[in-house]
């Protein structure tokens, strides 16, 4: 049901919600004080009890993730994934810009819970305002004795370190993020053996949490796990931020009750999307970031619940919902997404590095009017070689899910809108002449 309950976006309408004074005035850092009075294990239990699902994409329960840390191995690190960069995803940015102290408080609670003494917040490089707001909030927090030596007068000390990304989408993947933090090229590590909880940052046990996940912790610690699970669906409790974009009248980030609100309500309620533009019909929508398989009108009444969405063959992922109305060219839409993944492939695994680029080239050729009938099946087969079976959850010939992500829009669009592809190749001229030969880069001779 549409609801105006705001747990984590409560300060977004304030002009000074990002300041320490306002944060404190509105109850800030009380949850931290309360947590510090508890044993870390008790905090972990509280969060486990809240069944807080990770908000980064995979939706893994936060408390359980913390529990994977091997006992008595120190140092261990908390890494905050603020490298939000999937097209259509912009919820973490607002959390960092509008309520940075809430994140810092969440970071401190999590660090206390897992007994970490250092937390690294990895922020996407392009988010200039978020950098500024978080940095000044952190300075305030250090000055107020909330972060640093003797947190809030206790004998527990901890530091928060910012790291600004350099624009690679892949470092949103946790192991690539860790590589990048270590100063290496942002390229994913294979799990196993490099599960962050065991061999993470500097090969030490590491928890990687999403910004939104941690932003929920102050509310949970203030109000208790029971109050949290009372909101939304018990299996997907609390609220969740969805970044709604595309052909709706009122795009934006909305905090909705998790697991109970439906896609139709999100698109049509005046509280949220306020209807499809110009009263058109939905042709397709992407339920959870451009890496997710697409949904269509028959999915509109499905609740925004990971179990339902997963069973229907897609995911809520990072909470980026893109709506495409009936005027959308599905081949171009798929091409645009494939092009994104092609550009953002890190270059490590051959199927992703070569495959996504090849797929993009086939699309480009089709759109330029040089498609061949065989190209449609070729698209599917090349995609299949990156993500065998083109099924959900995806199988992959790559280390990380970036490559298979490029297969999602292809499989979704070809299966549903094959006629649009056929129309492209039907009117094509068979010329295969590509662009003239160009050297990519002239390199100096050593």
């Amino acid at each position, binding site marked *: 049901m549409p609801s105006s309950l705001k747990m984590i976006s409560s300060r977004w309408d304030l002009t000074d919600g990002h300041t320490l004074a306002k944060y404190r005035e509105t109850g800030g850092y009380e949850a931290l004080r309360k947590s510090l009075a508890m044993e870390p294990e008790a905090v972990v239990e509280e969060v486990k009890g809240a069944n807080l699902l990770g908000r980064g994409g995979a939706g893994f329960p936060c408390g359980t993730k913390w529990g994977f840390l091997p006992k008595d191995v120190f140092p261990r690190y908390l890494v905050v994934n603020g490298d939000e960069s999937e097209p259509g995803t912009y919820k973490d940015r607002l959390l960092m810009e509008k309520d940075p102290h809430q994140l810092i408080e969440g970071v401190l609670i999590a660090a206390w819970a897992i007994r970490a003494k250092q937390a690294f917040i990895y922020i996407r490089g392009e988010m200039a305002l978020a950098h500024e707001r978080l940095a000044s909030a952190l300075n305030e927090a250090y000055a107020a004795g909330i972060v640093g030596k003797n947190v809030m007068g206790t004998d527990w000390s901890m530091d928060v370190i910012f790291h600004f990304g350099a624009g*690679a989408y892949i470092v949103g993947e946790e192991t690539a993020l860790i*590589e990048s933090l*270590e100063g*290496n*090229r942002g390229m994913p*590590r*294979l799990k*196993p*053996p490099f599960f962050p909880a065991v061999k993470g940052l*500097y*090969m030490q046990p590491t928890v990687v949490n999403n910004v939104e996940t941690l932003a929920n912790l102050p509310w949970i610690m203030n109000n208790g796990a029971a109050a949290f699970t009372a909101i939304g669906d018990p299996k997907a409790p609390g609220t969740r931020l969805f970044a709604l974009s595309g052909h709706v009248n009122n795009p934006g980030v909305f905090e909705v009750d998790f697991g109970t609100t439906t896609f139709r309500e999100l698109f049509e309620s005046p509280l949220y999307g306020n209807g499809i533009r110009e009263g058109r019909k939905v042709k397709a929508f992407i339920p959870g970031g451009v890496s997710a398989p697409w949904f269509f009108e028959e999915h509109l009444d499905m609740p925004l619940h990971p179990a339902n969405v997963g069973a229907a063959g897609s995911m809520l992922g990072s909470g980026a919902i893109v709506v495409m109305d009936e005027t959308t060219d599905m081949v171009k839409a798929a091409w645009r997404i494939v092009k994104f993944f*092609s*550009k*953002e*492939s*890190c*270059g*490590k*695994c*051959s*199927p992703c*590095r*070569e*495959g*996504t*680029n*090849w797929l993009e*080239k*086939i699309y480009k*050729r089709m759109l330029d009017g040089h498609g061949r009938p065989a190209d449609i099946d*070729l698209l599917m087969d*090349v995609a*299949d*070689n*990156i993500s*065998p079976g083109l099924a959900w959850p995806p*199988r*992959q*010939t*790559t*280390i990380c899910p970036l490559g298979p992500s490029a297969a999602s829009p292809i499989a979704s669009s070809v299966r549903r809108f094959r006629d649009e592809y056929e129309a492209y190749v039907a009117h094509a001229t068979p010329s*295969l002449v*590509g*662009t003239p*030969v*160009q*050297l*990519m*880069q*002239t*390199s*100096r*001779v*050593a």
Partner: protein
Amino acid sequence: MSDTTIDTPVAPPKTTLTVTLDGRTGEANPGELLIAYAERMGTYIPRFCWHPRMREVGMCRMCLVEIDGPRGPSLQPACMIPVAEGMKVSTESPVVKKAQDGVLEFLLVNHPLDCPVCDKGGECPLQDQTLTFGPGESRFVEEKRHYEKPIAISDLVYLDRERCILCDRCTRFSKEVAGDPLIHFMSRGNQTEVNTFPDDPFSSYFSGNVVQICPVGALTAKPYRFTARPWDLDQVESTCTSCAVGCRVVVQSSGDRITRYQGVDSDDVNWGWLCDKGRFDFEAISSSGRFTHPMVRKEKGGIATQSTWFDALERTASVFRNTPADQVGVIGGARLTNEDAYAWAKLLKGFLRIDNVDAQLGDGLGAQFIVGTPQATITEAANASVVILLGPDLKEELPILFLRLRDAATNKKVPMVEISPKGTGMSRYVRQSLVHRAGEAPVLVSALVSALTTPADRQLAGVEADLINAAAQTINAALASGKGNGKVVIVAGRTSLAESASSIEEAVHALLAKFGAAASVLGAPRRANVRGALDMGLAPGMLPGRVSLAQGLDWFRSHWGNVPQMPGRDTLAMLKAAAAGEIKALVLLGADPLSDVPDAQLVAAAFAKVDHVIALDTFENASTGFASVILPAAGYAEKAGTTTNLEGRVSRLVPKVNAPGIARPDWMIAVELAVRLGHDIGFESVEEITAEIARVAPSHIGLDLSAPGAVDGVVVPLATIVADVPVAEASVGDVPVAGESAESAEIEIADDTPAVISVPPLVVSVAPKPSVVPQPDSYSLRLVSGHLLYDAGTIVSNSPSLAKLAPAASVHLNPGEIERHGLKAGQQVRVLSQRTSIELPVVENVQVARGSAFVAFGQLGGAAQALIDLDELAASGMIKVRLETVEARP
């Protein structure tokens, strides 16, 4: 991956795991990677990025297999997954086959398929695996990726980025193995390329390895490029003799011309790697600098003219005939095979009774020290509890030993302490690098030894007390930790040629005395087979098989009939005697004393004075210019035999091409001379000499390289023989330092030896007399001198690809010293020693300590050879130099 923190699996497997591979159940070792297990079981899983000597990355995705898991079979890279109990793996399922086909197609979409003009064609893993596993044709019709091709990433290596499949092998090698992270991935995604940073070429001593491990033709070596097709190559496995490490190599030729060396993955020695000097110096073999015919110089200073073997041998024999044994000096032998060396030892010592024989050129350590200290192998050093480096810059002189020890220090975390008058390539990998004032190694070592129990309280030999104590702490902690094999391995060699050999021997003996049975020595001689030549008796007072003249007397009389009357002179003493007119004839067994003895003036004086200089050599060099007779010798890859590396490992040398002209192996020349001098030397082939060595040379008794497991060589003395061969108390000096006396064992010799004579004991090194401690002198600098990998030596000079890499002579100074002298880098200065002065450009080098000046030995111009005065060295323990600015010339 993080460079520092991945554990290398070291624990020996206790139990085995049951793994089912394509339905066949087998026993796997814990920690073993699936890809390695499969290969062991006879299933080759295709791969490009995985290399057993480097960390796995799982990039190419070629080795995907299906592994049964709780959620059904999943595709996993076999190169990243260790075996697990009960693991069920399919390498041939339809899903696997499709994935492999897919990966190959992906790798080929942007690959230029220019196989017909590619050096790799015919031996290309991409080509082979496409044929074996891949689809027949490509569905890719778009324009391929284009790059400028090829580009030079170093002076020796070309990179063709179009062919590159981005497997991360070369980049991993440069970072993980060589420690020269100069090639990198650049750009991202489909534009990812391997390249160097601008103005920062891949100038690594190990660059050739990336060519060998490249799974496509992306990296090619300039010396080999376009010289042969793989299917035309013929090859043998041999041992590299560019330095004393003795790397195992494959020698390849086409049309009786050596075209390429490839490293062989020998577990004990080189792990498949070669240094660039060893890899590319094949160019010298067919160079125009080779002697092809005997040459005779009829008058001193005259022109040498081509002669015949008959004439040249007759002239040589007459020199031996007409010169008393004590007036002949024989210098050199490190270039020879063991068989050559033995033949010459038998001729010289057994028949001619000449003992003025020395395989070293005054630039090594004492022969008795080298053969008589308890020896360690490379692998023992790499697994030691602690390693003490007391030798030359390994990166410059013994590059593959450097790689092995670098691996030990970085991956196995073996603690190391370095003692040297100058920082070295190892300095950044050791726990403490103690850079002492030149000539004061014994002072420092004695301070270090006392600091093991009582901390030092003052600076000694120019090293701060804190650093000495930290090094002592490293050693104590390492020995207490129980990690490693419990050994203290001392890598011993000449740290500087401007220091006396005895100062190093003294320092090593102090360590041996301190650590007792736990300590052993890994010698770090520079020349390839110097160890073998000494083992074969080419040293004064020594006989073959590491026995002294005194103790081997009866044994060798019974085998040879005769031995020299008394111990002879070493090279430096011979040269002095020659300069004084006491020695009338010098024989150079593949030696160039004028270039290599650290006192060129002395050599010149000797050459001027003697009546005859006879040179057996492969190449024209400075010293052969003084020879009255030049006997052309067959060189590397042209003759059979064995060679001995620095750890005492005897391995095979296999001929591949014919010697130029009418050059002959050195042993054959010895046989010819013996005949002319009226002796029956007793063998007519290399095999017969090898057999005689295994029968006669005490340390080599029982050696059989055809035994199973001996393919990469055998370390002598054999462990089983050691027990039988008694080791005697030291014959001179006071305290025997290592080894215990054992009862003489009677070994029956299965030939017609009349009486049973016991095998003589092996030599045991004794501590030398304390060397002179140099006196501080703040007005001058102390000279430090050592070799660089690329020098003006014969082999490098005759290898065009390497010759241009040899830096010009220069004087290296600490930045502080440059400032103190008011100099600038690049400026020309006059370096004055007691003897001479020479103008050199200044190079800034933080490895050089303040108060020292480093001049590389054997560079063009011979600066260091000229500056060093052995009399000064003997008197004061160091060579003093001063700097004077040179007025800029108009």
